[in-house]
């Protein structure tokens, strides 16, 4: 059969139309009445969950790490070393105010002998009933509202007579629920009807699905036999028509040909399933190459050497592989070169080379801290391995020392382990949320004073751990090749010992993702 011929034979079906069963409109109408899709709720829940995990893990780690810092601070505060500042008890004060307010409210409720106290009590009840109203929203009819009003008025009356607001509201809540149920049962006939229809629809669907499953099973087992049975069915229908032996012979011949063809098809289909499954599996892997900019942030307004630490921009790059566990979830890992940094402006420092005669005046009291021998009370710290540069522990209290800007950069070789969840997958566009952790090995450590490197930081940890949260937006511009942008954030748990350092980092990566 040629294409033209096929088109002409089937042209009658080109604009084929058929009146759908009338109950379908009712079902569509019922679906249109339903609130927004559950799918959307799932997406939002998954975003919320990812954000909650992404933020809570760094937060927990941050507070844990702060406890450690507190201990270090106690030691250092005795010697006026590196200073971190903490907030006072604002929260406690607020709590006290709240408690006071509650107390006054309780007193008002207990007195209950003037208009003001009645107002307080009524507002409590109305709050309770706003909950009722929310619960009853699904009913959404006039009767429900009446029920609420009734119960509200009951509550107010009983409130005047007794002292327990809570018990009144609870009992009236029960009443309102009962009234609502009975009302909705009586008044919402239409809704009930539609519900019945819906349930019928479900039953029908279930049956049809079961039927289709059995059909598909049968077809999987043997296409040939299925087709044969169809044919025998059509033969039965045509008992009256097919009554001479020649046509029977020709039909039998054609049937056997069709059966043979179907057998061949079934066999080749089976073979092809195995062949086709392999590439599907291989599509699960992807390789990402990326680069980006980062900004290390002073998240908690921390100070080092008496001055507030400022943010520092740097860059990173890396390679990552991703394995798709299913349609939504995936895991990825790889490696990345990333830089964490900070700037401190206006630091007082002492240059040993220039003031060699004075160095003897300072007595080292630890590996990092020096105390002047004289009556002056300021101290110096050596943050770098270059002992020729000593910095004032508190830059503000030191007069007569040189001032400069300190920049620190730590470069890490990081290995992330991420879990990714696909929020949106539409044609060529994907949006994916990633969260996880990483471990990093220090590969470069540099302190620069006024732009000139003076050595390495003494307090830096060789290995660093952290968490990350990012969102990948990718677009397929070539077959299986995506361009993506990836805003995100990193939190470094332990970059330094005994010194504050930027631990939080914004990042913005971009790159290519190839599926294979």
């Amino acid at each position, binding site marked *: 059969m040629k294409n033209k011929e096929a088109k002409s034979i089937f042209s009658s079906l080109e*604009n084929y139309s058929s009146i759908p069963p009338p109950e379908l409109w009712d079902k569509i109408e019922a679906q249109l009445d339903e609130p927004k899709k559950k799918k959307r709720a799932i997406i939002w829940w998954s975003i919320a969950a990812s954000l909650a995990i992404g933020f809570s893990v760094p937060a927990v780690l941050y507070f844990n790490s702060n406890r450690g810092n507190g201990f270090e601070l106690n030691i250092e505060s005795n010697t006026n070393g590196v200073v971190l500042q903490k907030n006072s008890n604002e929260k406690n004060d607020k709590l006290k105010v709240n408690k006071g307010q509650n107390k006054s409210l309780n007193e008002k409720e207990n007195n209950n002998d003037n208009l003001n106290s009645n107002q307080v009590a009524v507002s409590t009840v109305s709050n309770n009933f706003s909950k009722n109203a929310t619960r009853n929203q699904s009913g959404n009819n006039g009767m429900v509202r009446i029920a609420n009003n009734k119960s509200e008025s009951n509550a107010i009356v009983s409130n005047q007579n007794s002292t327990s607001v809570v018990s009144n509201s609870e009992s009236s809540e029960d009443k309102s629920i009962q009234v609502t149920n009975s009302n909705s049962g009586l008044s919402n006939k239409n809704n009930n009807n539609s519900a019945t229809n819906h349930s019928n629809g479900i039953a029908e669907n279930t049956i049809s699905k079961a*039927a289709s499953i059995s059909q598909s099973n049968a077809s999987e087992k043997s296409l040939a036999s299925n087709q044969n049975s169809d044919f025998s069915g059509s033969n039965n229908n045509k008992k009256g028509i097919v009554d001479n032996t020649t046509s029977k012979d020709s039909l039998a011949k054609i049937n056997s040909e069709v059966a043979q063809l179907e057998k061949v098809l079934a066999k*080749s289909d089976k073979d092809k399933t195995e062949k086709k499954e392999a590439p599907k599996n291989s599509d699960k892997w992807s390789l990402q190459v990326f680069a980006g900019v980062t900004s290390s942030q002073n998240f908690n307004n921390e100070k080092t050497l008496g001055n507030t630490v400022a943010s520092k921009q740097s860059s990173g790059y890396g390679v990552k592989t991703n394995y798709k566990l299913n349609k939504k979830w995936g895991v990825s890992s790889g490696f990345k070169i990333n830089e964490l940094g900070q700037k401190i402006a206006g630091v007082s420092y002492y240059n040993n080379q220039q003031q060699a005669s004075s160095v003897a005046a300072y007595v080292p009291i630890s590996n990092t801290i020096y105390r002047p021998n004289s009556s002056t009370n300021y101290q110096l710290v050596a943050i770098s391995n270059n002992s020729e540069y000593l910095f004032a522990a508190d830059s503000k209290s030191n007069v007569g020392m040189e001032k400069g800007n300190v920049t620190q950069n730590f470069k890490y070789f990081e290995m992330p382990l991420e879990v990714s969840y696909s929020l949106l997958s539409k044609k060529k566009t994907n949006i994916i949320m990633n969260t996880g952790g990483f471990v990093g090995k220090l590969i470069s450590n540099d302190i620069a004073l006024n732009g000139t490197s003076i050595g390495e930081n003494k307090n830096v940890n060789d290995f660093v751990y952290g968490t990350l949260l990012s969102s990948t937006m990718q677009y397929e511009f070539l077959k299986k090749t995506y361009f993506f942008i990836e805003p995100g954030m990193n939190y470094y748990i332990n970059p330094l010992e005994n010194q504050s350092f930027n631990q939080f980092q914004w990042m913005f990566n971009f790159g290519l993702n190839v599926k294979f």
Partner: protein
Amino acid sequence: MKENIESYIKKCVENDREAQLKIYQLFSPILYGLCLKYMRNEDDAKDVFQEAFVIAFQKMDQFKFEGSFEGWIKRIFINKLLETLKKKKKDVFFLDVFETEVVEEEELELAPIEQEKLLEYIQELPDQYRMVFNLFIFEKMKHKEISKLLEISEGTSKSNLNRAKSILKKKILAVSNSKTA
């Protein structure tokens, strides 16, 4: 008529039930027919028809009045039909071109066959053949477009069309012969 449809569409965007019913009454026969051509049986066709209509109403605000509304809504239905067929059978696969025996066939002289019978034969085709056949014959799509849409190679699309035609030919011949006999 065209203006009427436009006003119904605008009202549909505002979730006007009467306008939605009007659109349904106008387009449901052709769209239900479309579902019957793509799905294996009436129950499956009903399911997709219902889902696709809900999607169409929900996306009505995306119609820009630039092309025909019928074409737009048909596209939504075809996308939904193909998506359902792909989902329904995870093992839907397409034969590769090397298995095809593209043979020049002789013109056939066939007795006319009823619409319903032809539809039945199409419905009996395996899902993968039916998809390609419908897209090629009724939607007038090229193999290149079909291959993109179904994420298969052009060769596979051609091969599946040939398979579909081959099966249909046998069935039509059988009926034709029985009528002439």
